[in-house]
C-alpha cells in the first residue's frame, strides 16, 4: 500500500570539527528569542538540476531541500530562518568557505550550506553547519539516497542540525498517522491517513467504508494498531503499512478498543468490553497469548506503557469519575495519580519517561497538560472548547493533538484539526492536513 521506503543513507563524516561547544539552543524553556539562522540554498550544477527536473518534476532541488529544512526549523519555534533575499554570498561559494562577515552582517548566528550532485542515479547531498560568530565549521555530513527521497534528506539535515545545536535528538524525519475526516458531523466519514511530520506526502490507508479510530504507531517498526468498525464489529486491528496487510487482534467476543503498542513493539495493550464493563488486556504478538491486566467493575481504558515497559498509566472511573492511574505492568499496585479539579483522560507516557501527558475537562473547557508520573507538578499547556488525545514527538519535546470547533445552533461550523505545542507551552501551531483530521500518532525517527 505504501511503497517501502528504501533509504540507504551512507553517512559520511567529511570532517567533523571537534570544536568546543559553540552555539547552543536551550530547549528546556519557552524560546522567545529563536536563533537567527541562515539556510543557504543547496547548490547544484546545471547538469544535476536538469536531470532532476526531468525525474522529480521539481526545479532546483537544492532550493527545495533547503526550504524543507527552513520550514522545519521555523516550526520548531527554536530557530528564526532569515530571509534569503538578504543573502550576499552565492550558495556554491558559501559552501566552500563562507565569508562570515557577510553572514554576521545580516545577524545570522548559524549558517547551513550544502551541495547536491547526481551520480549513478543516486542523489548525493552534503551539508555543513557553521558557527558564524566563531567563524567555525560545526558539522559536515553527506548522504546518498534515491532522488525521490529528497524531502527526507531535508528532514534528516534538520534532525542533525537540531541535535548539534540543542544536544537532543530531533523529530523531523518522522511521520504522523491520523484519521482524516469529511462530511457532516452526524455522518462523518473517517479514513486512516499518513503523512510526513510537516504535512507532505499524505496517503490514505483505508477507503472510508467503515469507521476507523485511534491509529497508533509501533515504536519499533512501520506497523500500526487501530480500531475499525469493519462489519459493524468494533475491534482492534493490526496494519502493516508497507504491505497493506491487516488482521484483527485476538479473538474477543466483544468490542476491543484504545490500543497501543508496548515500547518493545511486541505487545498490544487495549481495552476489552465485556457485558458493558471495560478492562485492560494485552496480547503478545509473537505467541498470541492474551493476558488480563485489570479486573474492576469500572471503566478501565486508554492504557499507555512507560518507556521501560515496567509500568502502565491508564484512565479509570473507579473513583466515580475519569481519573488517571498508574500500575505495574502486571496490573498490581494500582495508584491514582490525578487529584486536581475536573476529569482526566487519555494519559500517555512520555518517551523520556518523566512525564505523563493528558486531557483534562474542567468547567466546560478542555486542556492538554502534563504531570510527573507520580501526579505532582501538573502543568496545563493549552485550553480550548474541545481538544484531546496528545501524542508525543519521539524526543518528548512536542505534543500533537486534535481540536474540534464549537458548532452554532444549527450545527454548522464544525471542524477538526491537528495542533502541536511544545512541552514548554509555547509554539502552539496548527499542523497542515489535506482534510479535517483527528487522533494523531507520532512515529519514531525513521532514521538515526
Amino acid at each position, binding site marked *: 500500500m505504501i511503497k517501502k521506503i528504501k533509504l540507504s543513507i551512507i553517512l559520511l563524516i567529511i570532517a567533523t570539527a571537534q570544536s568546543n561547544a559553540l552555539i547552543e539552543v536551550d530547549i528546556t524553556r519557552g524560546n522567545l528569542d529563536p536563533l537567527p539562522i541562515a539556510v543557504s540554498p543547496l547548490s547544484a550544477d546545471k547538469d544535476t538540476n536538469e536531470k532532476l527536473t526531468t525525474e522529480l518534476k521539481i526545479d532546483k532541488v537544492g532550493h527545495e531541500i533547503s526550504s524543507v529544512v527552513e520550514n522545519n526549523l521555523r516550526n520548531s519555534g527554536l530557530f528564526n530562518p532569515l530571509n534569503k533575499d538578504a543573502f550576499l554570498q552565492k550558495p556554491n561559494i558559501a559552501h566552500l568557505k563562507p565569508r562570515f562577515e557577510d553572514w554576521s552582517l545580516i545577524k545570522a548566528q548559524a549558517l547551513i550550506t550544502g551541495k547536491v550532485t547526481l551520480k549513478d542515479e543516486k542523489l548525493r547531498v552534503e551539508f555543513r553547519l557553521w558557527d558564524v560568530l566563531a567563524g567555525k565549521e560545526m558539522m559536515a555530513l553527506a548522504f546518498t539516497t534515491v532522488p525521490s527521497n529528497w524531502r527526507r534528506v531535508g528532514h534528516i539535515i534538520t534532525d542533525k542540525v537540531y541535535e548539534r545545536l540543542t544536544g537532543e535528538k530531533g523529530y523531523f524525519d518522522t511521520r504522523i498517522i491520523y484519521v482524516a475526516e469529511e462530511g457532516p458531523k452526524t455522518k462523518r466519514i473517517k479514513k486512516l491517513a499518513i503523512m510526513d511530520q510537516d504535512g507532505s506526502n499524505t496517503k490514505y490507508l483505508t477507503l472510508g467504508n467503515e469507521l476507523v479510530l485511534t491509529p497508533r504507531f509501533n515504536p519499533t517498526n512501520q506497523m500500526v494498531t487501530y480500531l475499525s468498525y469493519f462489519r459493524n464489529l*468494533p475491534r482492534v486491528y493490526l496494519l502493516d503499512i508497507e504491505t497493506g496487510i491487516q488482521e484483527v487482534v485476538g479473538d474477543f467476543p466483544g*468490542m476491543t478498543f484504545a490500543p497501543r503498542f508496548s515500547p518493545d513493539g511486541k505487545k498490544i495493550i487495549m481495552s476489552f468490553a465485556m457485558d458493558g464493563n471495560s478492562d485492560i488486556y494485552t496480547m503478545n504478538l509473537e505467541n498470541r497469548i492474551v493476558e488480563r491486566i485489570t479486573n474492576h467493575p469500572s471503566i478501565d*481504558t486508554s492504557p499507555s506503557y512507560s518507556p521501560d515497559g515496567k509500568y502502565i498509566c491508564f484512565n479509570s472511573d473507579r473513583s466515580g469519575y475519569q481519573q488517571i492511574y498508574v500500575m505495574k505492568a502486571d496490573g498490581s499496585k494500582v495508584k491514582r495519580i490525578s487529584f486536581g479539579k475536573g476529569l482526566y483522560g487519555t494519559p500517555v507516557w512520555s518517551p523520556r519517561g518523566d512525564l505523563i501527558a493528558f486531557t483534562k475537562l474542567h468547567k466546560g473547557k478542555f486542556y492538554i497538560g502534563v504531570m510527573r508520573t507520580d501526579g505532582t507538578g501538573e502543568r496545563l499547556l493549552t485550553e480550548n472548547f*474541545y481538544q484531546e488525545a496528545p501524542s508525543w514527538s519521539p524526543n518528548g519535546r512536542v505534543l500533537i493533538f486534535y481540536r474540534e470547533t*464549537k458548532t452554532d445552533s444549527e450545527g454548522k461550523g464544525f471542524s477538526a484539526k491537528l495542533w502541536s505545542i511544545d512541552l514548554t507551552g509555547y509554539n502552539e501551531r496548527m499542523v497542515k492536513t489535506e482534510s479535517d483530521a*483527528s487522533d494523531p500518532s507520532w512515529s519514531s525517527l525513521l532514521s538515526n
Partner: protein
Amino acid sequence: MNLSKFFKNAFLVMLACLVLSACATKKVQNQMQGDVYTGTETVEYLASGVPDRVFFATNESVLTTASRDTLRKQAEWLRKNSKINVVLEGHADERGTREYNLALGERRANAAKDYLMTYGISANRISVISYGKERPVDSGSNPLAWSKNRRSVTVKAN
C-alpha cells in the same frame, strides 16, 4: 420628547427580549429534566407506542424512570414479536475523550440490555454496539443537543 420616546421604545424592546428568553428557557426545560433529554423530537418508534431510545445524564448509565418505562414497552413488544432480534446502540455526547466515550456507550447499551433481560428477553436476541461520540443525532454544541446524543437506541437487527 424624543428622548422619552426612545426610552419607551428601549423599554418595549427589553420587555420583548425578556419574554422571548423566558420562552426559550422554558422550551429547553420542557425537553430536559436535570440534563436528561425528555423531549420526543429525535425519538423514532419500533411500533406504535414503543419508543426506540432512552436517554442518560452526563457521564451516567443509570436508567431513569422514563427510560425504564420505555424499555418495558420494548420488552413487551419483543415478547409479542419473538422472531425479532435487536441491536442496542450506545452513544455518548461530544464532551468527553473518544476512548472513554466508547466505554461509556457500551455501558449505556448494556444497562438497557440488562433491563430488557430482566423483563424476559433472552440475551441471544440482543446484541450491543457502542459508537461512543461518533454518531450524534444533533450536531449542535449545546446542552440540549448533547442531551439528545447521550442515548441507547434499540434497532431491529432482522
